């Protein structure tokens, strides 16, 4: 009997801890997202766009190319059985724009940029740089966290667009140049079936949501970690695990809302 109560209490405590942590993360987001634009802020932001966005370009574009190529190859072998290989362009473009580009780019971004953000902020915390900044009278939420948060929010959607473009080109290389699908039908089927608002627009909305969630998790994990070497390693792992799960889970929800009604 007491054992049952004890385990119930343990679950309750876990629930309390989880909701407290979520609350802290919410307050943290509210305090750091409200950044007053200034020239200095712009400089810090651009600096972070370079680190978070530009340096992630290579891995995102190369992955996009390969995924586009694989899609075309797999799609062709199925479509050709039905004599529908003309629809290859449509298939590649829709899979990339609606699903693969936002999701895979976000997962890569979490691994490449998110973990780096967590480790960087965590190490600043462990070496008391954040505390000393506070004591100098500079709010680290404004100075350190806000530029990184906004840089991630802006960078990922742009990376996602790049992922789609390169992926569609990769599909073209395999489908048209290698497997011999007629070039005109590859592009015209794509043009006829892709809607700018429904497909491109919704893909970008997805990537905006993922960008916010991944960057938020990354900077919060860095800011909130236990300032020891073990704490930093745990928080970095948590960033990748939590953001991957959040991206995949949210993707399902968003897909239901966006495309659930499409026939």
């Amino acid at each position, binding site marked *: 009997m007491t054992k049952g109560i004890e385990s119930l209490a343990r679950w309750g405590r876990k629930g309390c801890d989880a909701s407290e942590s979520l609350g802290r993360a919410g307050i943290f987001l509210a305090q750091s997202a409200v950044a007053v634009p200034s020239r200095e802020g712009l400089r810090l932001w651009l600096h972070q766009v370079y680190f978070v966005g530009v340096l992630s370009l290579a891995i995102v574009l190369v992955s996009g190319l390969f995924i586009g190529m694989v899609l075309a190859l797999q799609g062709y072998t199925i479509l050709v059985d039905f004599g529908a290989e003309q629809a290859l362009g449509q298939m590649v473009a829709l899979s990339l724009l609606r699903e693969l580009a936002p999701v895979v780019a976000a997962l890569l971004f979490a691994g490449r940029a998110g973990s780096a953000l967590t480790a960087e902020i965590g190490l600043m915390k462990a070496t008391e740089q954040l*505390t*000393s900044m506070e*004591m*100098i009278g500079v709010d680290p939420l404004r100075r350190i966290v806000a530029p990184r948060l906004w840089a991630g929010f802006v960078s990922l959607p742009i990376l996602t667009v790049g992922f789609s473009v390169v992926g569609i080109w990769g599909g073209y290389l395999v489908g048209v140049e290698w497997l011999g699908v007629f070039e005109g039908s590859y592009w015209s089927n794509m043009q006829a079936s892709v809607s700018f608002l429904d497909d491109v627009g919704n893909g970008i909305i997805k990537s905006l949501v993922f960008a916010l969630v991944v960057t938020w998790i990354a900077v919060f994990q860095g800011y909130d970690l236990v300032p020891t070497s073990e704490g930093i390693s745990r928080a970095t792992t948590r960033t990748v695990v939590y953001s991957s799960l959040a991206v995949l889970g949210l993707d399902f929800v968003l897909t239901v809302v966006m495309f659930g009604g499409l026939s």
Partner: protein
Amino acid sequence: MTDVPFVEIEDLHFTFGGREVFRGINMAIPYGRITAIMGPSGTGKTTLLKLIGGQLTPDSGRVLIDGQDVHRLSRKALFELRKRMGMLFQSGALFSDLDVFENVAFPLRVHTDLPEPMIRDLVLLKLQSVGLRGARTLTPAELSGGMARRVALARAVALDPELILYDEPFVGQDPISMGVLVELIRRLSQALELTSIVVSHDIKETLSIADYVYLISDGKVVAEGTPKSLDTHADPRVSQFVHGEPDGPVPFHYPAPDFYSDILDDATASGGHP
């Protein structure tokens, strides 16, 4: 110099991780003097500095700096107040992505609109006063511990604060840099009429520069007075600390069961290792 208190701590209580760190601390830290807060390791001296700097919030009691209650200020007002304070961290806590010059220039750049040549002059003046003008292009990773602390000191006084908090300034220093730091703290305090709070357990160095000393132990102020009066204090705990005796009222051993029975006790009976 006047004896008007610049920092007042009233009946401060603070619990951390289920442990009562402070149980009613009272202090009055006068303007323009060096006040030392001493005590054995683990008595929460650094915690006290964090409470004064507003980074931690006490369970009850107040900390007044120049009449303002630190823990009742808005976030904005607190950051405004912190511009009038400097803090020297144990590790130096220099910004690792900036070189020595930029570290010292940081407070000036964020809090003033001074033109670049003036910032340069000010930074060089501050670096000159800690003897590191020649090290301005080095990165924090290239500095020794003592040099890092001196750069941090230059940064802490960059905005000419009224109050400066030193967290264990002498820990882990060789005798030469220890002497340099002692001299620097004394000189800066006199030249700038700084109110200084030095948290330390290095008795000789601290007593040589302090005007007034508070000794804390077990969450309370156990003694206070001028360095001279502490030297001949009647309380055995104070005398043990000031004269650095290994055993006395503050025991050498961490609380443990009786040694004899602990050794003879069958380890398996108590469930293995403990």
